[in-house]
């Protein structure tokens, strides 16, 4: 069922948008490239051109040569940016220290994020990268593109920037690496007007959400990860572009507990697909696996001979809750004991499917080590239906944000705030009852912080009354 975009999507045809002619694009020969030496001495980097893995140095030298042979007026920032970047990288190896330094605040008008300032601390030696800022371009959900879009970005970025990119940044954005302060606004206008495309988040705001491939090409997905990701990214554009939070806040959308977009490890609010009815079983397909007609785990272990598929050893015995059994050739699952770990489904995708009555679990508080230590997201909402327009999800988000914005200290992530307040207090504030699903085990220490109103007679007591019963 097709989904509708917020606004009609501007059609992009590279033939209409392009800057460079075909000749300009292919302005060097293989031979030239083979003998091409950049203006700086980069012995260590040249060592990295060898080896089977795609060499980022070899790739950079292509662009360096390409810029060398473009006419002056065919690039608005310094021709030598790539060569200077490589030169500075070599010096970094020699010094064993980076040569990028803090920058001032850069950005586009009306936005507090999306552009990261970068300045070289060797501007004299590498003038072209004295200013070498990063622009984060909010990627389409699950990073599907077409060549019209990408070729247009390339022409724009070679013309107005270094031609260097990251596909993709850690949080999911398409990253444009290195342009001058002057070109920030023009690039923003090209992105919004020509590409109908906005920039991502950075700083104390909602960062660019990202999702797994979901129902686009995965049989395990329990909800429309792309649609929820797109909807929340659009609905919270203000929170994304205008930092008003104590610190960064990340959404990530995993279609199932396999967690291919790592939401449980990398997002303050982690959405993970789940189901509340029974795993669907195709008994014939199960028999096919047992008989060896279908390769287990989609052939992911083909590289080694593990012997004949053994459903007992490989599936039933590995089930963490031992809720599966073979009863005269039929696979039986005691679903109320199943914790939806995905193993059996992963091993026999042709035979087993998640249930139909699906939704999401919401976990809170993941973050990397800085500052108090790494955290993984904690299970808070066991099950929530996930259907457009997702009002129940938005309501929950806003309740959590309200608390975090109220109580969060400067640069205090949600997970750290939850630790500072304690899980019981946090639940009370966002109005949720406690459930054993939220903990691995109940507390092991007996230090319970009772509230005065919960203790009959309260805490105001008179010593005389006590002494009447107990002599000193």
């Amino acid at each position, binding site marked *: 069922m097709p989904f509708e975009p917020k606004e009609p999507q501007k059609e992009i045809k590279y033939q209409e948008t392009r800057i460079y002619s075909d000749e300009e694009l292919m302005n060097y020969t293989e031979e030239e490239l083979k003998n091409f030496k950049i203006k700086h001495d980069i012995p260590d980097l040249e060592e990295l051109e060898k*080896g089977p893995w795609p060499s980022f140095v070899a790739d950079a030298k292509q662009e360096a040569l390409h810029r060398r042979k473009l006419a002056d007026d065919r690039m608005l920032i310094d021709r030598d940016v790539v060569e200077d970047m490589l030169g500075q990288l070599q010096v970094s190896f020699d010094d064993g220290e980076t040569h990028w330094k803090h920058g001032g605040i850069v950005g586009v008008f009306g936005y507090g994020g999306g552009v990261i300032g970068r300045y070289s601390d060797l501007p004299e030696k590498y003038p072209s990268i004295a200013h070498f800022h990063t622009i984060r371009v909010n990627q389409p959900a699950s990073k599907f593109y077409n060549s019209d879009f990408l070729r247009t970005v390339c022409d724009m970025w070679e013309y107005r920037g270094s031609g260097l990119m990251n596909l*993709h940044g850690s949080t999911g954005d398409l990253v444009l690496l290195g342009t001058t302060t002057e070109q920030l606004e023009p690039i923003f206008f090209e992105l919004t007007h020509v590409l109908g495309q906005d920039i991502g988040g950075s700083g104390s705001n909602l960062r660019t959400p990202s999702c797994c491939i979901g129902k686009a090409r995965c049989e395990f997905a329990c909800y429309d990860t792309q649609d929820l990701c797109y909807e929340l990214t659009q609905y919270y554009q203000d929170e994304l572009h205008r930092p008003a939070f104590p610190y960064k806040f990340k959404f990530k959308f995993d279609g199932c507990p396999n967690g291919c977009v790592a939401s*449980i490890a990398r997002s303050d609010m982690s959405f993970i697909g789940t189901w509340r009815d029974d795993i669907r079983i195709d008994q014939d397909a199960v028999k096919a696996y047992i008989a060896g007609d279908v390769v287990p785990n*989609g052939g992911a272990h083909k590289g080694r001979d593990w012997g004949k598929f053994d459903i007992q050893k490989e599936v039933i015995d590995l089930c963490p809750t031992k809720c599966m059994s073979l009863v005269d050739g039929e696979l039986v699952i005691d679903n109320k004991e199943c914790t939806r770990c995905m193993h059996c489904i992963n091993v026999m995708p042709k035979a087993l499917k998640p249930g139909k009555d699906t939704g999401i679990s919401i976990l809170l508080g993941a973050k990397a080590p800085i500052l108090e230590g790494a955290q993984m997201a904690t299970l808070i909402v066991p099950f929530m239906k996930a259907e457009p327009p997702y009002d129940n999800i938005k309501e929950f988000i806003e309740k959590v944000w309200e608390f975090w914005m109220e109580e969060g200290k400067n640069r205090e992530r949600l997970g750290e705030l939850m630790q500072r307040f304690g899980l019981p207090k946090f639940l009370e504030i966002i109005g949720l009852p406690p459930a054993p699903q939220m903990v691995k085990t109940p507390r092991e220490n007996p230090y319970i912080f009772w509230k005065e109103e919960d203790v009959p007679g309260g805490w105001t007591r008179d010593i005389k009354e006590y002494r009447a019963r107990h002599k000193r």
Partner: protein
Amino acid sequence: MALSTERLGLYDPKDPLKDRLTDLGPRHFWQYFPPVIQNNYGKWAYHEVLEPGILVHVSETGDKVYTVRCGAARFMTVQHVREICDIADKYCDGYVRFTTRNNIEFLVDSVEKLEALKKDLESRKFVSGSYKFPIGGTGAGVTNIVHTQGYVHCHTPATDASSMVKAVADELFEYFQGMQLPAKVRVSMACCLNMCGAVHCSDIALLGYHRKPPIIDHEVIDKVCEIPLAIAACPVGAISPDKTPEGGKTVKIKQDRCMFCGNCYTMCQALPLSDKEGDGVTILAGGKISNRISQPKFSKVVVPWLPNNFPRFPEVVENVKKILEAYAADANKYERLGDWAERIGWEKFFEKTGLEFTEHLIDDYRLAYDTWRTSTQFKFTDAAWNVSKTAGGIE
């Protein structure tokens, strides 16, 4: 409408708000789904990894989509992206996608196109001989190494990312193009503790690490930083206010409290802490994100520090291989590295990998007590005999 070529394009500095379009958000995903995906959205029935890097997904409708996954350095120039577009146009009606771990995926809807696409991709090499689009990264192998900017573009790294990943990926290439491991091995790399690449839950994590407290740039600190912010930045309260001889505001640092996390430098550029001799690489292992069989778990520090031996990091590569090969030789099918270490016991992990268990690996941060072994359940290894002998237990 064409991309503009005027110096400031459509932007009018005299009237910054004019024609400004904001809050557009990303382009809608549906338009970038190839037909075979649009037609089978939500209908996929099952998949199979035909060979390393080649997937087929079969829909309830009977439609099939073949996916060719290629490794990528994540760092790409427009030339490389244009070449990707050429391939996409030639075989995939212009469509292409990227995975969470920065692999490239070309989707075709027929076996013929698949074979042609494969042959084409295998033929493309950089002039230096390295593959442009190596096919692989699926199933029980080592897929693309997620990593961060490093010296290429970051101001707080303790090592370089692109070079380390290139060095390690070259050495593990057989595992990228093979599926011979007991289970998939996620290798990730981050060039400092901010861990933009979230390596804290990887089978093998490579982490840039400082080992020297910051140098204080007294001369400018009060001009370029908010001193209270720098003081509050320290998680262990090692930074406190101080006066310069001239009476200016600065800070002092209790060096033996510092754990080199670098957060003070992130907040204040007058507190640089990178250092050629001090900085290096910490290796962690045994982390996991998926909920499959066992619950998600953090990676554990298994090698406290290795030198930044640019550009090929021989020591890092050697230690990664020790871990991977011990795991490959001993773990059960489907058993992730962390589950294997827990099953055989971490003492056996260090024995089988040959890594040295030093005092650095024992937790002495906030939740340390929970990591202490409060049991007599242990296996004897040389490490146990060594401490028993020193304690006077045995001759």
